[in-house]
């Protein structure tokens, strides 16, 4: 077991590594290479040489998948060490590189359910950022009711023939593989006829279109499958038993969505104007004290955020100590709410300076502010709606009976 002193020393090493290797460009939140670095994949092109070098060096450390074994191109770190790597990366604005969908959510499932061959094929490629993954779970008519999914895979010898539609596939248009939920037995009860396929998105018959959100263009896609042929040995886990994998993996997704959303919207990491700075900026006399009602609104939002951060910290500490920790659904539910309220207050404080969609009158900061506010409405929907989280808390944490 790693002692506290050893962890301190490890943190110092990691901090030194980042101080030495991180390029200045990393702090540019609109750098064109960010997407490629966060997601990797066959089509990812990192153009800036400094960024390219940094990424390659990071891959070499194994920190893209810090807890994976070195055989799998990970770094073989403990959970505590991995958390330190993420902390320190965030500290230098490089946290986004470690928010990799594949390593956070798909990899663990392949490790737990894959064949040796599947593990060999996918894990290293993922940890090295060579292959980008996305998820194909929700369908237009089956969001919260995931198990009702209708996308069908019909066995035809050594392939499945897949037909149907998936939606909310994050970055599918820039991914190489999709972890796809399909119905392989339409006659079984709905939780019992589902399988998981690993689908190469270059297979013929797949069409992917990005979804325009209320906040503008997005990385979410709608994906249609028209008699797409997927080899049977690309199935992950037993046939018809995919629901068990979903249950196993859903927790990863919920945690990751919050973490990524927060990193994305600059909740942690990137420096942004504080609420009181924004409020002051819009006063006739910016040096005057804030009105008591405004100060109180800001204090309430800051206190709520402090409580949420303390809960994240306690969740990590408790998990490490083997003590009862806040349930992931609590973090998911509260994280969405806290971020939404904060965005909402920020918009109110900016007044009419933030109601612009485009126009010379608006600063980049205010244009970003309205889009972030709109985007944040999705936090309580994606990765399991807040209502689903509350159902989970009621049943699993509070042990309340089914209706």
């Amino acid at each position, binding site marked *: 077991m790693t002692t506290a002193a050893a962890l301190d020393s490890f943190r110092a090493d990691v901090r030194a590594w980042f101080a030495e290797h991180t390029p200045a460009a990393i702090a540019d939140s609109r750098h064109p290479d960010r997407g490629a670095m966060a997601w990797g994949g066959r089509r990812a092109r990192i153009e800036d040489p400094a960024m390219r070098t940094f990424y390659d060096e990071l891959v070499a450390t194994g920190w893209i998948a810090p807890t994976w074994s070195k055989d799998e191109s990970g770094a073989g770190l403990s959970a505590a060490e991995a958390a330190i790597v993420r902390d320190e990366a965030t500290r230098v604005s490089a946290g986004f590189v470690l928010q990799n969908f594949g390593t956070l959510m798909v990899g663990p499932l392949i490790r737990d359910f894959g064949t040796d061959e599947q593990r060999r094929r996918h894990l290293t490629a993922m940890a090295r950022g060579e292959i980008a993954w996305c998820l194909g779970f929700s369908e237009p008519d089956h969001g919260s009711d995931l198990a009702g999914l209708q996308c069908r895979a019909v066995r035809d010898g050594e392939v499945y023939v897949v037909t149907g539609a998936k939606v909310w596939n994050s970055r599918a248009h820039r991914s190489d593989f999709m972890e796809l939920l399909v119905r392989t037995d339409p006659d079984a009860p709905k939780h019992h006829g589902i399988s998981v396929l690993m689908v190469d998105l270059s297979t013929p018959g797949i069409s992917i279109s990005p979804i325009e959100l209320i906040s503008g263009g997005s990385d979410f896609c709608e994906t249609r499958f028209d008699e797409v042929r997927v080899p049977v040995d690309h199935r992950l886990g037993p046939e018809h038993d995919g629901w068990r994998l979903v249950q196993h993996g859903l927790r990863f997704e919920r945690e990751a969505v919050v973490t990524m959303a927060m990193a994305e919207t600059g909740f942690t990491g990137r420096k942004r104007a504080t609420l009181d700075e924004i409020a002051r900026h819009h006063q006739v006399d910016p040096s005057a004290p804030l009105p008591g009602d405004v100060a109180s609104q800001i204090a309430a939002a800051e206190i709520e955020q402090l409580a949420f951060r303390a809960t994240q910290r306690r969740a990590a500490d408790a998990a490490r100590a083997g003590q009862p920790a806040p349930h992931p659904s609590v973090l998911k539910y509260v994280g969405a709410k806290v971020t939404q309220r904060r965005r909402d207050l920020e918009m109110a404080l900016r*007044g009419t300076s933030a109601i612009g969609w485009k126009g010379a009158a608006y600063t980049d900061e205010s244009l970003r502010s309205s889009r972030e506010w709109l985007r944040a409405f999705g936090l309580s929907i994606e990765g399991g709606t807040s209502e689903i989280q509350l159902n989970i808390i009621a049943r699993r944490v509070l042990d309340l009976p089914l209706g």
Partner: protein
Amino acid sequence: MTAVSSTVSAPSRRPRPLVLDDEQLLLRDAARALVAECAPMADLRDRRAAGDDVGFDRALHRRLVELGWLGITLPVDQGGSGGRLADAAVLFEVLGANLAPAPLLSSELLAGRLLAIAGDPTQQSAWLPAVCAGQAILALAFEDRHHHDRSSPFTTATRQSGGYVLQGAKREVIDGHVADQLVVVARSSSGCSAFLVNPTSPGVTIRRNHLIDHRISADISFDGVVVDDDALVGEEGAIDAVLDGVLDRATVALCAEMLGSAQAIFDRTVAYLRDRVQFDQPIGSFQALQHRAAIWHCDLELARSLVMAAVAAVDDEDPEAAALASAAKATLSDLLLRSGAEAIQLHGGIGMTYEADPGLFVTRARVAAALLGDATFHRRRFATLNGYGP
């Protein structure tokens, strides 16, 4: 026996009942028919996609004029219908239900109303008949800041021989980008005054603001703009009280529009709850969602009562009208924002997409909440009007 000592006072004036009268019910039906025909919500997206730089539908504007609804509250002798605010409120509510923009708030309730009560006959006849005939759009330029402020702290009017020089910049002027004439509020040593300004005058610069709600407004700067004495509306330095009344009235009209929007997105969401099936049942059968919808309904009922009470108070020239206007705007600002958010949440993923309607309501909510004073401004003003302001 000892009777209570208070003398018998005359029964207080009967308050106007909080219901629509028969004419208003007919007006509402006619307005609904018009909006359904001429202002479907998809138009908003279509106009943005087409690079629209007007922000409303000229055809709808024409139809409103044809039906005599532009000028519904303006004096009959200026071409208006001489109606009450209650009549305009019916229109605004119906427009709000479809998020249909029209130059009604700008031309009639703001600039038009200000001219109607403070302008001289020449000013009135120059512009009000044109507004009612759809030949002119007016805009009231009064905001100097990004938070509602009726004091025009930064725009100045300096007296010079035969007129004034205006200096400053106005924010978020509703329909300022298409206005044929501006009414500009500026501050001189004696207080605030209003001036008629031709938008093509030297020194006037107009920038279009494309808003998140698909409407368009203008930031307008005035750099040494010279106006004649006859541009002054009302007395110099004495427009504040007039402006307060005009803004309160316009605020109540905006509240009626917001009420229409909130009710509409509520109704659409409840319909969605009835129709959308998940887990093999309509999601509207889940009790947690039922209770949220029921509480939302209660809040709408409260808001409707408050708006109707504010409308009645304005029409009755009740001294409580200002406080009721602020109460209504504080309430509607919060409620419409919450309604938009709740609509997205209850629609789930589809609610986040640009092609669905909830997003249109939530962006409109944000803009309408900020215009003419947000909830914080109006709660503060309500406190001040009641003698306990900070």
